[in-house]
């Protein structure tokens, strides 16, 4: 049975596209047939994060308008056999697609894929409505900041009204040094406020910027963010994975380097 997951946040710039790219890649690496759909019409980005921007021929709007078949618009990933990307259109606007058309296309893709991941645009207007229309599960991405959490709460309210069967929270860009100083909300604080199950904590990691520069998702790698995304993928599949205590990892390394400094 296939699952349709929308990655959403309300606020822009909190990491929806990075999360989509990494969760999609991670699931494909674990042998699942995955299609990533960029639903941000007019501002396409997922292709760049995936490093597939040079391979686009047709896009989502072409499929909806019947200019090509679904299969023609799907781009095969460089790294994984079972991963495909449906790019968005860069020159059209959000009104080019309706929620009904989106549902129809998702239904069609369900026949071929285990996981359909929809990268949602920021905001709660039509682009958001299109992205959530065909989905039955959501990953809500937020950062530990007041504005992002407020928007996430609004999004969760809207998803609950649509009777989503599962809504999980990803806390992105957590800075353990700031948490330690009492200058950033903890993951527990955010969960307490939003009251939905936590599926992952991604620490603030410069490797995310480096990976995006290179167009290579970092899931599965040895970086902190890469490991966090790997854990999220396993939890998406229903595995019970304990949360990595990065604080401990960091303090361990400071202790180790501390020893060398003394000598």
């Amino acid at each position, binding site marked *: 049975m296939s699952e349709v997951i929308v990655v959403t946040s309300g606020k822009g710039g909190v990491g929806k596209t990075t999360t989509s790219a990494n969760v999609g890649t991670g699931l494909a690496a674990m042998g699942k047939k995955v299609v990533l759909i960029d639903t941000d019409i007019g501002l396409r980005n997922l292709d760049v994060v995936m490093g597939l921007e040079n391979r686009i021929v047709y896009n989502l709007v072409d499929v909806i308008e019947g200019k090509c078949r679904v299969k023609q618009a799907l781009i095969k990933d460089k790294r994984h056999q079972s991963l495909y990307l449906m790019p968005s259109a860069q020159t059209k606007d959000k009104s080019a697609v309706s929620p009904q058309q989106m549902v129809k296309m998702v239904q069609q893709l369900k026949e071929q894929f285990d996981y359909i991941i929809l990268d949602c645009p920021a905001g709660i207007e039509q682009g958001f409505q299109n992205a959530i229309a065909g989905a039955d599960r959501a990953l809500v991405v937020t950062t530990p900041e*007041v504005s992002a959490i*407020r928007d996430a709460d609004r999004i969760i309210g809207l998803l609950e009204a649509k009777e989503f069967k599962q809504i999980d929270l990803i806390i992105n860009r957590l800075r353990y040094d700031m948490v330690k100083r*009492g*200058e950033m909300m903890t993951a527990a604080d955010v969960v307490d406020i939003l009251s939905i199950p936590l599926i992952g904590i991604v620490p603030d990691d410069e490797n995310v910027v480096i990976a995006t520069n290179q167009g290579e998702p970092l899931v599965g790698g040895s970086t902190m963010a890469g490991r966090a995304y790997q854990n999220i993928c396993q939890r998406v599949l229903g595995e019970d994975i304990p949360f990595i205590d990065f604080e401990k990892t960091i303090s361990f390394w400071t202790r180790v380097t501390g020893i060398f400094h003394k000598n």
Partner: protein
Amino acid sequence: MDLGRIFRKKSSREIAKDRLKILLISDRVNCSPEMMEMIKMDIAKVISKYMKIDAQSMEIQITKTGVKGRGKTQSLYASIPILDLNK
């Protein structure tokens, strides 16, 4: 005893959390302030039929009652100071 701890300023983490909690109560209620004021006036009018109340300092609030704050049931709480039970 650590005096600094007693007189310490609230950390920005605590400020953020407190602000969000208050902010989200009003965000989650789909009710405009004007409508809240109208409800308040109507309640005051009805209660005033039976007893003398202090309508100026009465307060009403809509809260979500649920185990984890995200329960589906919402309740209206009214705090109405009574000046005289016998009108």
